[in-house]
């Protein structure tokens, strides 16, 4: 068992080879030791974590099962409500709010499964960014090179796993905010189907595309956390009423019956050679030779950008009117611009979304899983405004969503997997399926992990 192995920790706690309290003490010590260098945590819940861990040990001592994640430390992006904690969502404005009265649904479900919450994690303000260069609370640093970004907006969530602070975390993903940091930090990240996991108690950003999901150091831990969070939730109007479809039991089912193809065109251009080499290594391992072209991805990004800017601005309109200078300079001008968008553009973008969805529905008649890069390059330096890719200088931050944004635009389930290789900085590959087919993604990821093609990069 290692500190990054959630189900390994749970097995040891269940067998009483280690106590949940000892596990929490060790996690808190790692956070104290490492977080000053990484800046993942915005709040550490030491007393609460020790109390909850002690309760797990007491349940075991009394012969009760605390749940499948017994004693596993975890942390959540600070846009999830945590009872007793102010939900910052990366902002200074929210710091004046009262503390949350109850946990977000997914946080409550993880705690009910025995997991021990140890803190809240840094992010881009209101989730509007791909780098977690937060002007109020400082940038989160990439554990593989602290001069580089962790990605965003769930940067604290990815770096906390890659830095071995906790075995798994929660993030949110509107245009790529789980998958981008997962790629840059070398961990697994799941953005499930839109509506699969409850968003109740999670700060919203672009309501048409907001998803929540886990990040972890192994496929089975990702599946374990995901399985516990599934299920209907009447308090989230977007959450589908689907029954739980557990993925942990299907990890060994193999991939022989799955039709796997590589996305070309948009998804095979404008990136560094190493990200396409990563896709090819995954394709080769899976025997995937078929190429599929998805059309109009730049328009999909344009439409997603318009919808996000418009919905995000409308959520924060009152603060934009009354205290614009309290916003992070990294988000402020973009929010204000979004507030000025004509409604007709928003509606047209939504209509295009339906067109783009119809195209993907046709593709998924012939294919079960698509492969695509997650980011066009590995982690850029903190403060790096532009980057040269294929000889062309581009804006670094929006470019990070080049391959993720079209897929969240229509709510497809995606796992970003960390590709094994000799390069000093990690990159991820997206496994993409039709809506509600997360199980297929987990089967592919598990096979790739077993074969050593993919592996999380966790610092020693």
């Amino acid at each position: 068992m290692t500190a990054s192995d959630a189900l390994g920790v749970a097995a040891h706690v269940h067998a009483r080879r280690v106590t949940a309290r000892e596990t929490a003490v060790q996690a808190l010590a790692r956070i104290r030791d490492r977080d000053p260098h990484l800046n993942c945590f915005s709040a550490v819940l030491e007393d609460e974590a020790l109390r909850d861990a002690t309760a797990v040990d007491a349940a075991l001592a009394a012969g009760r099962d605390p749940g499948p994640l017994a004693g596993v430390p975890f942390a959540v992006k600070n846009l999830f409500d945590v009872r007793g904690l102010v939900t910052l969502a990366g902002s200074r404005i929210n710091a004046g709010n009262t503390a949350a009265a109850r946990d977000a649904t997914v946080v409550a479900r993880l705690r009910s499964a025995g997991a021990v919450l140890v803190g809240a994690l840094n992010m881009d303000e209101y989730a509007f960014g791909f780098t977690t260069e937060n002007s109020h609370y400082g940038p989160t640093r990439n554990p593989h090179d602290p001069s580089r970004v962790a990605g965003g907006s769930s940067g604290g969530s990815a770096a906390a796993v890659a830095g071995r602070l906790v075995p798994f975390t929660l993030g949110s993903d509107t245009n790529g905010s789980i998958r981008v940091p997962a790629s840059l930090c070398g961990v697994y990240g799941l953005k499930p189907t839109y509506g699969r996991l409850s968003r109740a108690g999670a700060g919203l950003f672009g309501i048409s595309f907001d998803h929540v999901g886990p990040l972890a150091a192994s496929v089975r831990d990702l599946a374990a956390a995901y399985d516990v969070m599934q299920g209907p939730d009447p308090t989230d109007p977007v959450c589908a009423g689907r029954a739980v479809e557990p993925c942990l039991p299907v990890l060994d089912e193999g991939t022989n019956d799955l039709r796997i193809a590589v996305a070309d065109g948009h998804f095979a251009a404008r990136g560094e050679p190493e990200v396409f080499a990563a896709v090819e290594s995954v394709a080769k391992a899976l025997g995937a030779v078929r190429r599929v072209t998805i059309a109009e991805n730049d328009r999909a990004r344009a439409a997603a950008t318009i919808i996000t800017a418009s919905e995000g601005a409308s959520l924060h309109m009152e603060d934009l009117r009354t205290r614009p200078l309290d916003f992070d300079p990294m988000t402020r001008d973009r929010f204000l611009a979004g507030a000025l968008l004509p409604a007709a553009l928003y509606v047209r973008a939504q209509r295009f979304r339906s067109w783009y969805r119809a195209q993907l529905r046709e593709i998924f008649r012939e294919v079960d899983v698509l492969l695509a890069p997650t980011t066009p390059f590995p982690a850029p330096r903190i403060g790096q405004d532009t980057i040269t890719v294929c000889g062309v200088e581009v804006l670094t931050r929006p470019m990070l969503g080049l391959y993720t944004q079209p897929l969240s635009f229509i709510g497809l389930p995606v796992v970003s997997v960390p590709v094994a290789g000799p390069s000093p900085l990690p990159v991820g590959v997206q496994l993409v399926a039709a809506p509600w087919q997360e199980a297929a993604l987990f089967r592919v990821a598990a096979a790739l992990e077993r074969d050593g093609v993919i592996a999380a990069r966790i610092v020693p």
Partner: protein
Amino acid sequence: MSAPELADVARYVDEVAPLLALPIPPECRGGVVRNLVALLTAGDLLGEFALGEEETAPVFEP
């Protein structure tokens, strides 16, 4: 449609923001204009695409 001109967008910001009771701080004006140009350019890209009869009414259950 053609890409929006910076000066036209600046005038739009100056005239529309007050109607929305959205004061734009002077230090933000340049950034807001640049970002709105980018958003309107994205809108132009969408406007050039011939859509069919896509229905996008949100599902509302009374």
